[in-house]
């Protein structure tokens, strides 16, 4: 038994060189996520501080704008995609082969894409009601925070595309394995941020 080389899922000795090779990269990626958390933290704080009568500037507020059914559906999609992303990691750990991993990644991408579609249609209906980011300080904070998360999801989808390409071209090489570890961390991280958004933006907003 080798000790874990980094936080999170480790590939273990049976993966040969892929195991030690991932030590620095995974650790470095954790450090990046901590930095990204600061970015989200600032937007969370800005959003929370703008939920005042002054911040709303006489414009529409949470009660008029949020559609909890859609948000619940988005949450379900994203949580499910975290599960399927976890399945991709476990398939790799269990040597299930590139095909299985690619399949789980594809499902993850579909769920993530579904999340994004719903989010965008919510945005569109807000815009249609004249509740765009330029309407009030509070809406600026909302669109920046939720939009940044959406941008991260979009980047994640592109990343899945790259991973599928790599799996197709290079198979399950050591480098690709490490990249899969990083992607999984990223995706779960976005899930966590979403839980923050769900509770602070939507639940608190409608409470």
């Amino acid at each position, binding site marked *: 038994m080798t000790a874990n080389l980094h936080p999170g899922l480790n590939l273990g000795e049976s993966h040969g060189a892929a195991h030690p090779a991932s*030590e*620095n*990269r995974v*650790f*470095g990626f954790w*450090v*990046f996520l*901590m*930095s*990204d958390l*600061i*970015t989200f933290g*600032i*937007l969370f704080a*800005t959003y929370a*501080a*703008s939920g005042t009568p*002054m*911040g*709303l*500037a006489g*414009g529409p507020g949470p009660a008029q704008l949020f559609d909890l059914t859609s948000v619940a559906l988005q949450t379900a999609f994203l949580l499910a995609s975290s599960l399927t992303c976890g399945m991709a990691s476990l398939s790799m750990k269990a040597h299930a082969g590139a095909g299985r991993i690619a399949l789980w990644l594809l499902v993850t991408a579909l769920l993530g894409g579904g999340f994004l579609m719903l989010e965008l249609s919510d945005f569109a209906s807000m815009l249609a009601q004249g509740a765009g*980011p*330029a*309407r*009030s*300080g*509070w*809406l*600026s*904070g909302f*669109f*920046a925070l939720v939009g940044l998360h959406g941008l991260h999801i979009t980047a994640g989808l*592109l990343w899945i595309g*790259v991973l599928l*390409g*790599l799996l197709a*071209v*290079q198979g399950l*090489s050591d*480098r690709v394995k490490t*990249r899969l570890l990083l992607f999984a961390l990223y995706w779960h991280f976005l899930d966590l941020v979403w839980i923050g958004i769900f509770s602070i933006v939507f639940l608190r907003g409608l409470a």
Partner: protein
Amino acid sequence: MSGLFGHLDWTVTPFAAAIADPGTNTFVAAGAAGLVVLGAVALLGFLTWFRLWGPLWRDWLTSADHKKIGVMYCVIGIVMLARGVAEGAVMRAHQAMALNGGPLSAEHFAELFSTHGTIMILFVAAPLVIGLINIVVPLQIGARDMAFPVMNQVSLGLTAAGAALLMISLVIGRFETGGWSAYPPYTGRVFSPGEGPDYWIWSVVPAGIGSMLSGINFAVTIYKCRAPGMTYMRMPLFTWTALCAAIMLVYAMPPVTVSSLMLALDRYAGFHFFTNDLGGNMMNYANIFWMFGHPEVYILVLPAYGVWSEVSATFSAKTLYGYPSLVIATMAIAVIAFTVWLHHFFTMGQSASVNIAFGIATMIIAVPTGVKVYDWMATLWRGRIRMTVPMVYLTGFFILFVIGGLTGVILANPTIDYQVHNTLFLVAHFHNVLIPGVLFAMLAGIHYWFPKVFGFRLHETWGKRAAWLWIVGFCVTFLPLYALGLMGMPRRSSSFADPAFVPLQLVAGAGAVIILLALAATLVCYGVSIRQRGTLAVPFGDPWDGRTLEWAMPAPAPEWNFAVIPAVAARDAFWAEKTGGDPYVAPERYEDIELPRPTALGLVICVATTAAGFALTWHIWWLALSGLVGIGLAVMVRAFATQTTRVLPAAEVAVHHGRWLEAVHTARGITRDAEDSPANRGLAAPDTEVTP
């Protein structure tokens, strides 16, 4: 509105303005723009004439070697320093004549202090610090490179893009006029509809992201890539300060990236983060900006403290006094630095009890710094002191930095700050810590480690001339500003009405001339040293009788740094080997070495980022989109690269190392008396050293 060229047309250059409205003001602007254009043309001509494009491409622009990247950071820092100092001198000249007017327009003066401040913090001090860390840290901890050599290149590319945009702003259009902190609502689109704040935003954002990536790289390198035996409490102090600065970069850079992008959303998309109307809150900008701004000054000064630690120990031939206390003080500063940011806006209207909490935190941070100053003085005590160039800077630092620190403690008292904030007293204070603290340390550090990178020492006499000019020039320029501030002269004033300010303004103006001479002497020192590189060469690699690992290899250091990764058994690892054994023995066996392959990724990202930033500034949407897509594509294509490293055969390393060892064994070392003579070839003989 925005066709193929966005808001660009032929009237945006300062040349057009100088023709339309000739006068001192427009001629100064056109002259500066002319210098940039001439400089660029001269550089292109020079590279072509001497057929240097090939070597530049092969050995530098595509290199992932941490030493080369570090040198390129330092070159950016020195070039931008020249511009920043020139701007400072122009401002001083203007203010010396600014009783009821002055030669430059108010807007031009505002552009000058805004570019000057932005340049000095983000494109002089930061690149010099990051460059020095890049060069030194892997050598000090026994590593072959940074943990992520290619990401290192990308960081450099992003910083260079920001610097490039700042240079472009001198020729095309105008820079922002709201100071280096760019406070809205003034920089919002209602009050500053032009391109100025956009130039600021798109130089700051890439530099911020680049620095954050550097922080990750440094932190992972120091945590994960140390040689066996290099425990935390054996790390050289410069590495310790680099570690703390790296952690701070990771946490302090996102705020400035975010606040700048929020400002961009306000300006481009009509958001209301910091506007006067519809629920904007401009105080939130100051809040977020200084969450970056204050830690940033400690990011700059901690590695400077690291330089002083190395310099004081080496040039007094003693172990650093109070190593554990220096480590603890460094970490304490890194933590407390995140708890004081509010002292930049004591007057913004929060309650007195909030102010005093941050005031006390600010005073507390002075304590660990005081500890350090005493540690360095104790290190020098009864040492074998040589007054080399770095030691001259250290002497200046000791006296001047303590003055700057004490005026900082004065400003930390909110009651006093209400009186002197926004005056020249504050300008005197921060130049007083930044110049003797950071800039002197960087110049000293360059002098100290230059031989390790290039294989020859810098000219001592010219170096000393420069050092003394910097010290005297600083005093004459900036100490009078304390008095002017107490007399009530506001900062950022393009003119004033009180004749009482004139005499001290003239003194400060004269000081600026001395500083210009100091800059010139610094550049002459580099030029003279390059010419005399033969007599100044130190191929054996240890010109200062060094104590830490970087001195245990040839100079210039080979691309792979260490022929074999050293096993570390003591704190001053190389010193321990020199006193307790023989540091120059061939290892039993050599191994193949894996090195990063050259890549153009950093350069591609640099060009694409510059293009995108320029295009966003001028609303050239097709180019902006191409730039951003280019960045994304470059990263994605890179993911498919498989041949990212190359292998250097053990036999080759053995030949290189063996030749050097042989030369060392036939050479004769010098004592410290001959340190500044051509006899110093970088091999140290035992000296009359006293303390362990």
